């Protein structure tokens, strides 16, 4: 069985895992609220990639439908998230993640 010309599916999965980890690390490292929020979007898209890969593998369109729903939800989250970020900015005049720690202990 010769190596088929297509790229083996597992590479896609590894890519999506890497993207996911990048998202997680981004969440931990970044100081700005917006970039933190973007890293979450990155994680969601990483999942979309793995969905598509599995859909292709299982020749099942359900995976792609799932991707659409994920995107819709991500959009809703973005709307709400940005609204909240604006509220935080208006209340605390800062977007630095480390400065938002009124509540502790």
């Amino acid at each position, binding site marked *: 069985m010769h190596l088929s010309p297509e790229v083996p599916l597992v590479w896609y999965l590894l890519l999506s895992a890497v993207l996911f980890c990048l998202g997680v690390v981004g969440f931990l490292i970044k100081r700005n609220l917006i970039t933190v929020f973007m890293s979450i979007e990155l994680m969601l898209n990483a999942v979309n990639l793995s969905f598509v890969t599995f859909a292709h593998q299982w020749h099942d369109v359900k995976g792609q439908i799932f991707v659409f729903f994920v995107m819709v939800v991500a959009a809703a989250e973005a709307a709400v*998230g940005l609204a909240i970020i604006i509220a935080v900015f208006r209340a*605390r005049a800062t977007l630095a993640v480390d400065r938002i720690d009124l509540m502790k202990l």
Partner: protein
Amino acid sequence: MNSIPDIYRILPEVILTITGVLVMLIDASLAPLTSRRTLGWFATIGTGVAYLASVWQLSLPMGTGYSGTVETSPFTVFFHVLICGIVIVTLLLSLDALPEDSHHQGEYYALMVFGAVGMCLLTAATELLVVFIGLEISSISTYILAGYRKQTGKGPEAAIKYFLLGSFATAFLLYGIAMVFGATGTTSIYDIARQAATAQNQLLVEGALAMMLVGILFKVSAAPFHVWTPDVYEGAPSPVVALMSTGPKAAAFAFLLRLLYEMFPHLRHLWSPVLWVVAVLSMTIGNLAALRQQNVKRMLAYSAIAHAGYLLAAFAGFGSTGIAAATFYTAAYAAMNVGIFALVTIAGGYNDERPLIADYKGLIYRSPLLGSLIIFFLISLIGIPFTGGFFGKFYSFTAAVGGGAVILAVIGLLNSGLAAAYYLRLAFAVAQRPDEEDRAVRTPIAPIGLGIITALALATIATLALGIVPGGALHAAETGAHTLQPSPAPASVPAEVTVIQTTP
């Protein structure tokens, strides 16, 4: 089997959505300054109708609708009733608690109703996609509600924390769903149940379990994933916390039950020790951290974490006893928590004017009803017999002991002993003789409106009923548990596993 129209399967959700939308529309049409209380009453009535609808669903024959994506069974009805009950009480509570001048109250009520839709959907879903959507609806509405008190510094901070961490955890859940889809090629819970055991790539299945556990354990605020709870509970207004600490948690537990008992029963050897550790961690961390807590809401947040731990102990039980115990505990816990947070709303004030335990000193002398109710709910939280709290713990630990996890039960009960310390500190502060010059004595308590009275009455009756005649609720939980058992796996999967099952 699907003789009845699919719409009946999701009747409560439909009614709730209509109510929500109508509330939004009426709110928009009302003049900006008129009082929004009528909207609140409208939302409550809508949820009441949904409550009746879900009770009516019991008469329907069990079955799935919309090509197997949603299901009605005693299990789902139990949770629908529970969630609608919680939302009704929280709405009644907010009617009087929300100050007149707080802007866009209409949205507050609409969001609550939409949250209810999300939670009900989550419990009724038998399709991971619907699970994801239900989870997201309830989460997003609670994100916004958490930040409702925009003008205070803490409101937005609570919202942003809850939002970021919430979506972070949901991403993990989603990744888990993807891996399950990858391993079994389907996202229907029943199909997964059939194929997961014999899936070709077990690594993916177990990975999925782990990832989904992370997402759900965050939602349930169990130990390693609980860090968001205290801050968010302190920042959010008390009526919202009443909803947040009970509604989404109950729905999440319902899904967790499906996940572990229906989808991955064959992985019990994996998730049982994990839950054991998580339960012990949540109990111990929750109780220990609360010992030194002076802020009442933060203390109750830690107690919520501890109660998640007690509930997880029920998962050590095998089969229906474990499920029934967990289900009953969600009900008992919901009744207590809604009650105590209603009282904190009144006693602590909407904008947390009196946040500390010291401010509650001698409360029973100023208003005996409020004081004695606080003591009653705290006693139920401790788990004194003849209250809901006791039987919740009792069934949970009976299931644990039945399942052989005797040490877990001992740790659990010793923890509830430890928990008594901080609950008592608040109870005795309330019961203590106030020395006159104390600051707390002078600030009068807000007059208690009709809404709050009914809310408190419902919560107290629920807690007492679950304590004195738990038989009824337990029976409902048990019938639910039986329905949850996975349909026996098909006799035998064809021996040789075709590498890829190509479906047309």
